[in-house]
């Protein structure tokens, strides 16, 4: 399997992703799935500043990511896919059976969400969406960094 981590993180590509996960996984590429960032070359460049030269940063819209997932999954390099919210990552799983495990890495507080873990706040709808993914056989865990405990979905929904 080439994609070693499918992560939901509303900070998208940041230190925990690049250093925390990227280093131990020896990631060769990171896919940032976000329609707004994909539409802004300037924002892509800002995100690229935080990624070392040996890691390729690929910016993709949701539609592009759905189409390209099989190709990325066949890449000989190890990859990380990051999306900013539950709905985006759920969309990637619709026609792709490659996603076996989803890492909930950081979803911060907003109106309508309640604290589930120190780094995970979910609305009821988001929690239900994660449960639906789990019912389809996808393992959902919350884990901000590799040294933290992988918390099973049942413990935070």
């Amino acid at each position, binding site marked *: 399997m080439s994609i070693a981590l499918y992560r939901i993180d509303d900070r998208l590509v940041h*230190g925990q992703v690049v250093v925390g996960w990227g280093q131990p996984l020896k990631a060769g590429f990171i896919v940032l799935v976000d329609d707004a960032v994909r539409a802004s070359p300037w924002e892509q460049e800002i995100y690229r*500043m935080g*990624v070392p030269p040996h890691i390729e940063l690929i910016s993709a819209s949701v539609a592009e990511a759905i189409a390209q997932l099989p190709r990325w999954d066949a890449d000989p390099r190890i990859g990380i896919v990051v999306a900013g919210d539950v709905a985006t990552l759920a969309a990637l799983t619709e026609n792709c059976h490659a996603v076996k495990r989803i890492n909930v890495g950081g979803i911060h507080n907003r109106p309508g969400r309640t604290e589930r873990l120190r780094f995970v706040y979910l609305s009821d709808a988001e929690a239900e969406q994660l449960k639906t993914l789990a019912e389809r056989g996808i393992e959902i865990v919350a884990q901000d960094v590799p040294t933290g405990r992988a918390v099973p979905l049942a413990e935070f929904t």
Partner: protein
Amino acid sequence: MSKPLRGVIVSHAGVAEALVAAVQGIAGASDALVPVSNAGCDREALSNNLAAAVGDHPAVLFIDLPGGSCLTSAASFAHGRPELAVVTGVNLAMLLDFVFHRDMPPAEAARHAAAAGNRAIRTPDL
């Protein structure tokens, strides 16, 4: 510009607050610097905190790392606003330079502070 230049330090955890305390300990207390932490913030919340810290001042945003949530939020916030400038890799020498050059335009103050910060990075022979 009528209002004095403000420095807003944007960091992970408590780095920004500690840097403000260190500058005040060396240069004396002033309102030149405001700390902002990314703790508990998504990009939108951090952007809102930045707006509150900057207020209606011209400002230089000092970021801890040349990437990550602090930079992406600050860069998005400052994009297209000439009254704001961004510097990454904040260190104490950089901030000490800044507090004594607040009469400069933001971009010039940012370059001046960055040069001072760079000069402070050394590997002395021991």
